[in-house]
Structure formats: structure tokens, C-alpha cells
């Protein structure tokens, strides 16, 4: 068995140190080592997008990355969105309002892909959402409500532009 590697990774603003086997996928590291079960594992071969997380702010599939590869990097998962007191992030609020989920399996990946999109395009049009999130599959909603939710999130976020994520509050 190849020897384990020591990694330091910042997940949702918290620094973690761990010994990982090289073959440990980031998705399994997040769920099984760190206990962050919000990241869902669907196909485990890069097709469905359910495990989408942000690495250094860019959306990527956690099942196509080894945990050793995020050594020294920062990762955001869906757990970074809501505040500690349970207040939903505007993106989550919008998904609730617009019925952007049914079974919820794809939702964590959808939310993270939407987070990336809204960071660069705060008021996306439906076609922008469809382009940016084409790599995230949903088997329930037919996508209509997901697209509406992301557009609505843009409205909510530009209205409440004073909203700060928990991480930003800590930094401030």
C-alpha cells in the first residue's frame, strides 16, 4: 500500500490537517474524513455534477480530484452557505422560494455551481444560468425551477448587498 501523504487544506474557512491515501477522492475526504456530508456523490465519474465544490473559487467535481491535490488550497462546500444560526444564504432562500429542488440530491452541486456563477455575474439571465450550470444534472425538476431559482438568487443578493457570508464576517 502506498504511503499516506500529509495534507493541509482550508475547507469553508477552517484549516484541516490530515493523512490521506493518494487514492482518496476529495468527495470522500470531505464526507468521510471531515464529516461534511453536504457534498453528495452521484455517479462518481464526473458526469452528474452532484459533488460540485469550489476549489480556489472555481467550481469542480470533487469526485475527479484527489484529496492530495488540494494540499495548501481552499475548498468551499455547500456547508459554507448558511449561517451558523441556520439563516439560509440568499441562493438557498431562492431555491426554497422557487421550488428549485425536489429530492435534493443534486442540490448541493447546483448551489455551488450557482455560487460561482453569481460571483462573476450577479444578475444572470436564464441562458447564462443554463450555460454555466449545464454540467449539473437533476432528475426531478426539469430544470425550469432551478434556472428561476438562480435568477431569483441574483435579485435577492443584489437587493441585500450588505449580506455577508459567515466567512466574510469572520474576516471583517
Amino acid at each position, binding site marked *: 500500500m502506498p504511503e499516506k501523504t500529509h495534507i493541509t487544506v482550508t475547507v469553508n474557512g477552517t484549516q484541516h490537517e490530515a493523512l490521506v491515501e493518494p487514492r482518496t477522492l476529495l468527495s470522500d475526504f470531505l464526507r468521510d474524513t471531515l464529516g461534511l456530508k453536504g457534498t453528495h456523490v452521484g455517479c462518481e465519474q464526473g458526469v452528474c*455534477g452532484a459533488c460540485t465544490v469550489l476549489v480556489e473559487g472555481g467550481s469542480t467535481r470533487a469526485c475527479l480530484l484527489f484529496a*492530495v491535490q488540494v494540499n495548501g488550497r481552499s475548498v468551499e462546500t455547500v456547508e459554507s452557505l448558511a449561517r451558523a444560526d441556520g439563516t439560509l444564504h440568499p441562493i438557498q432562500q431562492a431555491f426554497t422560494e422557487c421550488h428549485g429542488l425536489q429530492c435534493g440530491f443534486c442540490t448541493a452541486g447546483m448551489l455551488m455551481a450557482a455560487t460561482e456563477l453569481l460571483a462573476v455575474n450577479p444578475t444572470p439571465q436564464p441562458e447564462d444560468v443554463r450555460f454555466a450550470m*449545464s454540467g449539473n444534472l437533476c432528475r426531478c425538476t426539469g430544470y425550469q425551477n432551478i434556472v428561476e431559482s438562480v435568477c431569483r438568487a441574483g435579485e435577492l443578493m443584489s437587493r441585500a448587498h450588505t449580506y455577508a457570508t459567515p466567512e466574510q464576517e469572520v474576516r471583517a
Partner: protein
Amino acid sequence: MKPAPFAYVAARTTDEVVDQLARHGQDARILAGGQSLVRLMNTRLAVPAVLIDINGVGELDRIDGRDGRVVIGALTRQRTSELSDVVRGGAPLLAEAGALVAHPSVRSRGTVVGSVCFADPGAELPTALLALDGEIVARSVRGERVVPADDFFVDANETSLEPDEFAVEIRVPATDGARVGSAFLELSRRHGELPVCGVAATVALDDAGRLSDVRIALGSVAGRPVRARQAEASLTGARPSADGIAEAARLAAADLTPHSNSHGSSAYRKHLAIVLTQRALTRAIARADGGQPDA
């Protein structure tokens, strides 16, 4: 499924990469974006004993537009390339083809050179590279060699790279923009999937308005992307015409014997090769003529 165990090497320099490859050869795979390789490892279709991770080799993350060519390093992400002014200006076909690869969250990690080396017979970037007369720079402890794209692609997922070599960069001649146009067209079953057929075309118009330097490459119609040399020759020196384009498209598909699968029959692929070649040439010529801006 989970990947089989492997030894992991985080390389920091190109020299370290070639040293490791010299040591492990066929047992090793290069890990760049991992968007194809890790998928194969998760399903155990690939079981490398050693993974040489080049993500820490900063010198490979570069786009360079000097000396009349566009150079893309082994670590340049597809998304970076597709949005790069250097690539859009000097090799717009590569940018247009790149935007059709998978989905944004795959392209934010996947690399241009990785896609070329993975050599899927339908993948957009290898097809575009072939049409651009691109080159692959292969390095090993034995030195460096430059491989023309046409000699690089051998068969499905097979290239002429030796086990101890890795592709440090690709190079394409940069367009000077004057009366040069290109286009990439494809048909895929679903957005973001590999095309059932894809066509890359690039043309230049001389001072007299005649076609020169016509290059056409087709993907997903053989074990590797292929050039349509007869079709290219039929147009070279001619004034652009609908009949000439139609004849070139017919020639482009004439010798093809594409495979059949659940995405399309051989006959359907052949039909697509004709239609897409016709449209790609028409668009490339219109762009060369200043009718439409490049991608």
C-alpha cells in the same frame, strides 16, 4: 467505484516529471486536469501504478503568443485558453472548439494539452489542432522533439508519445488576422457531450479573392481525427462558390467509413460529415471575407 491504490508523486519541475517518467515508464500516468483520467481510474479502466501530478509545475501553466505562434503549456486549463485574448486572437479556432468541450466546471479543471494527449477520436481540441497544423512538444530525459499533430494521433486514445515522454506544450501557427477565417461545427446528442461528428475548417483568401491555405479536419469519423486533403486541394486556388464548397464537402466524406453506435449510424455520421463540412467552410470563408467576426 474507487480508484485502485497508486503511488503519488507531486512534481515541482519539468525535469522532475521526465525523471519520474524515465523511472516508471508505462506504469506511470501524468495527472493534469484529471477530467478524463480520474474518471477512468474511478471505474478501474485505468489502473496506473504511479501518478505524476504536474499541477505544481508552474512553468507549464502558460499561454504565449510571440514569434508568430500560439503556445499553450501542459497545465493551461481549457477555460483559461478559451477566454484568453492571445488564443482568441491568434488561434480563434482553438477558442471556438474549446468552448464546446464538456461543461464550464469540467473546463475549469481540464487542460488543453491533456485533452490532446487523451486523443479521443471525437474530442474537439485534437480535431482543431489537426486543422491548425499544430505541433506537440514532447520531452523526455533523452531530450525534446516536436511532433506534427498529423503524426501524433495514432488511434483512439493512442498517440505517438513514447512511454518516457510527456507533452510539455502545443504550438499552432498564429493567424495574422488578414483575410483568414475558421469555424468549428459539431453535432452532439446532448449539450456538452462528445460530438457524433465535428468539423474544423480554416481558410485564407489571397489578394485576388482566391482560396489559399484551406485546411479541414473531421472528428468522430475514424479512430483518430482526420484531415480531408482531397477536399482541401479541390478548393485551393479557386474562388469561393457554393458549388465548390458542396463538392469539397462531398470529397471530405467520400473515403470515410465511420463506426456505428447508439449515438449514430455510420451512414448518419457520413451525412453529418458532408453537412458540417459544408457549413464550416461557408462560415470560415465568410469570416475570412470579413462578413462575420471570428469566434
